[in-house]
């Protein structure tokens, strides 16, 4: 039995995972030396599944997302394996990567709706993205462009508009259309709803669910917004200080958290519905680059005991079925 985080214990004739990230570590070379932004992270995404990756600033979630698209520069050291449909993409050449990207995995980067080219029409930008990754005729590319715009509920007649003529929500949908153009099996979305109003946000989340239903696209949905993650994800992974601290089914992780950080995070979000009460904040700040010894959450954890300061916990099966990296699992009497 593998201790690989997130691996569902299914019968052997189940479909193999679409994406397998195994022991991924990503280090940046900085003026202060090497900083390990992502530290030994493992997870899988199955076909047609939405995995939510949640965490706060500097937890490593964006770095993880970028690694899957191999978007890091030469100063970044990547260790571990990333398997897409069984094939390791860590060793692909630049040429092979260009083939791989957009057709298999595409990305909606953070703030992308504000990075649209202001002097090109929406339609032309989508066509450009298509032709950058695939040999296509202009007319075929045009047909594809109209198809994906329709898929994101933008009338193809609007392809001739410029970005400033679109609302925020429409721009974001245009970017999603771009990411879908070559029919990838996996789309990585990094904070796709952060700058949007709650009403537009809901429309976008509904759209993503529909795309998953009808086109069987998987999503890696990266965000700090727990309520959004809870709404959209099948499974959830919580990251803290470069590590996954808890991973499992959406409801299990967010409604019955096992890890103290997940619990504290869920409890620190002011609720619109439900009981109105004074909440307790998590003391201290999330660490940035310089990790505490032992469990990285220990300085802020209300349950911390001596072992927590000495040894980093490994991911273990919790009693809600999630994998959680916390010494309390093997030492329940210290809670």
């Amino acid at each position, binding site marked *: 039995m593998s201790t690989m985080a997130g691996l569902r214990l299914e019968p052997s004739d189940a479909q193999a995972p679409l994406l397998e990230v195994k022991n991924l570590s990503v280090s940046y070379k900085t003026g202060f030396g090497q900083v390990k932004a992502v530290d030994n992270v493992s997870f899988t995404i199955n076909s047609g599944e939405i995995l939510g990756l949640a965490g*706060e*600033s500097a937890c490593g979630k964006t770095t993880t997302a970028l690694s899957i698209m191999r978007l890091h520069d030469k100063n970044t050291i990547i260790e571990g394996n990333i398997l897409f449909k069984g094939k390791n993409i860590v060793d692909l050449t630049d040429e092979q990567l260009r083939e791989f990207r957009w057709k298999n995995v595409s990305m909606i980067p953070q703030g992308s709706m504000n990075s649209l080219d202001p002097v090109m029409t929406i339609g032309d930008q989508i066509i450009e993205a298509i032709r950058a990754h695939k040999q296509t005729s202009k007319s075929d590319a045009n047909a594809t462009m109209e198809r994906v715009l329709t898929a994101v*509920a933008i*009338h193809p007649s609007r392809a001739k508009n410029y970005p*400033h003529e*679109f*609302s*925020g929500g*429409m721009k974001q949908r245009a970017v999603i259309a771009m990411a879908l153009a070559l029919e990838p099996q996996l789309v990585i979305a990094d904070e796709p709803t952060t700058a949007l*109003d*709650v*009403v537009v*946000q*809901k*429309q976008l*989340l509904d759209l993503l669910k529909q795309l998953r239903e009808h086109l069987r696209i998987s999503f890696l949905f990266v965000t*700090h*917004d*727990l*309520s*959004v993650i*809870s*709404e*959209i994800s099948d499974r959830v992974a919580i990251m803290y200080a470069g590590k996954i601290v808890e991973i499992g089914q959406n409801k299990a992780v967010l409604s019955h958290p096992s890890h103290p950080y997940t619990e*504290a*995070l869920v409890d*620190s*979000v*002011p*609720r*619109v*519905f439900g009981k*109105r009460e*004074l*909440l*307790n*904040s*998590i*003391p201290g*700040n*999330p660490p940035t680059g310089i990790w505490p010894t032992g469990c990285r959450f220990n300085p802020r954890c209300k349950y911390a005991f001596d072992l927590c300061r000495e040894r980093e916990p490994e991911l273990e099966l919790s009693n809600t079925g999630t994998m959680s990296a916390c010494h309390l699992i093997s030492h329940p009497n210290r809670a």
Partner: protein
Amino acid sequence: MSSQEIRQIQQDKKLVEIQNLKVYFHQRSTMLGKKVTLHAVDDVTLTLKEGEVLGLVGESGSGKSTLARTIVKLHRPTSGQVAYRGEDISRQDRKSSKEFRRHVQMIFQDPYESLNPQANVFNAVLEPLIIHGLARDKTEREAKVIELLRMVGLDPASKMDRFPHELSGGERQRVAIARALSLNPELLIADEPVSMLDVSIRLGILNLMLELKERLKLTYLFITHDLGVARYIATTVAVMYHGKIVEIANPDELIAHPLHHYTNLLLASIPGSELSEPSRQSTEYTFNPAEPPQGCRFHPRCAAAKEKCSTEEPTLTEIRKDHFVSCHYPLAA
């Protein structure tokens, strides 16, 4: 008068009275060379009572920030009036205006809007005191800054000499709050003060603000797009849409009995909401502050809109106790 009676009078004291305020921006549209007028705040009447926390909720473009900035005199009213303790703020002479700035302070979404990146924490907090001629000598200054930093939960010894970029987002916001409090203001206007902060830090700032309100007898105007945050901190919530106030009520009343269709839409859109989304909703509606809809501003998106809504503007009316709504056909109470 008994102390009870005095307290009663003070409780009813109106701190800020906004009457039919309009703040329009005249711009030449850059793409087409056409002159456009942006109706940012469009005939708002609102009262802020002493001791209240008024949560102003709305989407971006609703006019909430413009309204806040007009109260602190960063924008001039196009028409209408803003009165502070009964005095029209646009008619203040220099002396009264400077006095006013001691009473009303603002903190912003991005702490860098109030913090000079070249000033260390000590000087950032001290500057307002110097400008207003308070805290004359070195000992007094140091004592005051230390007191303020402690009040916002920062350790003076380790933070005083730091520069803003050396602090975390939450710490920067605490410094901005300390700076805003240095003049002992009565009213603090906070424009999305926690939106840029990490989830686990937000609550710390919100709890700090609640604590300071009690301790220093402050009044807050708190702007946010997040209903959860508004519910947590506000005693009254006003919902703004397209430059207008559409509903006012206390948070629990608003959430349990939304009367305006826009409020209902907001509540139904919140992730995890059990409310069903109103049936008719224009997905392509583009908000254009230069061309507000005729009649009720919300009617193009409203499932319950009837003919009257496109011709006649509704006005704020008390439908339930202490619950006001601006709608011709409010949701069943």
